[in-house]
């Protein structure tokens, strides 16, 4: 049995822990559309990325915005990929690997070490 006071303290701790990392929720993803600019995408998600990573493949600049997508009790890194200044694709790392455009696959591989370093 937990006293009312302890319950309030626990709830406050859970809330504070949740605030530690900015999180995206699945419902927010519906607001994204291909072709959005980085500013429009951040504004649609109502959140700035945790980090940004740039690379160039075949002369085309790619920028990746790193977010953390919460799935209830679990969550994972979620990325937005801009080709030039336009939103091209968004998803989990494994979804980027399956994307049918090989340039996107290569851009992903190029920025992955930076993303992993930024996470730690």
């Amino acid at each position, binding site marked *: 049995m*937990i006293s*009312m006071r302890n319950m309030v303290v626990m709830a406050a701790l859970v809330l504070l822990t949740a605030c530690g990392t900015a999180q995206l929720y699945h419902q927010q993803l519906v607001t994204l559309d*291909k072709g959005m600019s980085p500013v429009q995408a951040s504004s649609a998600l109502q959140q700035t990325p945790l980090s940004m990573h740039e690379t160039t493949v075949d002369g085309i600049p790619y920028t990746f915005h790193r977010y953390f997508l919460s799935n209830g009790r679990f969550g994972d890194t979620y990325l937005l990929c801009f080709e030039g200044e336009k939103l091209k694709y968004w998803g989990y790392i494994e979804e980027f690997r399956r994307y049918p455009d090989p340039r996107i696959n290569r851009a992903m591989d190029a920025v992955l070490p930076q993303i992993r370093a930024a996470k730690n």
Partner: protein
Amino acid sequence: MCRLPSRRSVVTGTADAVNCLERMPMTSAKLWISALLLGVLLGGCSTYIPLQRPQTAQLSRGADEAQVERALGKATVLASHTFTANGRQFLAKHYDLQTGTRQEMTTRCHRRRGCIPVFYDRPIYDAYVVVFEQPSGQVFAWGMLEELSRSPDDAVSSMMPALKASYAAARSKQ
């Protein structure tokens, strides 16, 4: 004052029990209203049927509306609207797809006994849409809204801003 009657007072019909019986019509009315509300709520629930994954596995490009209806059974269509994108006319039908459940917790608190956590499973839904090209009435695209927005097929992803705007307008009318 209406106190809870002791077992003895009920059996013997003493003052405590009699006082409470005076308030019985009011209590009875409250009970009937609660039962009625519950009935209305349950009636509402029975008409709302979310989509399940195995049903969506039966969808395929080119299927017509009747085939889709058969595949999706009695799943509730939340909204149906037509829109134009890239010079083509479409009909969109929206559903809720149940993608899983999440465990939530609430607390029951008692002044003397403290608080007890109570866990329960809550279903998770995602917005799902089936898009028919008009006038052929054949399935053009299907999936979750965010899934279609990032589709590698530009014919599908470029249609999504118009679909979402039309859906928002249809919902605001409801």
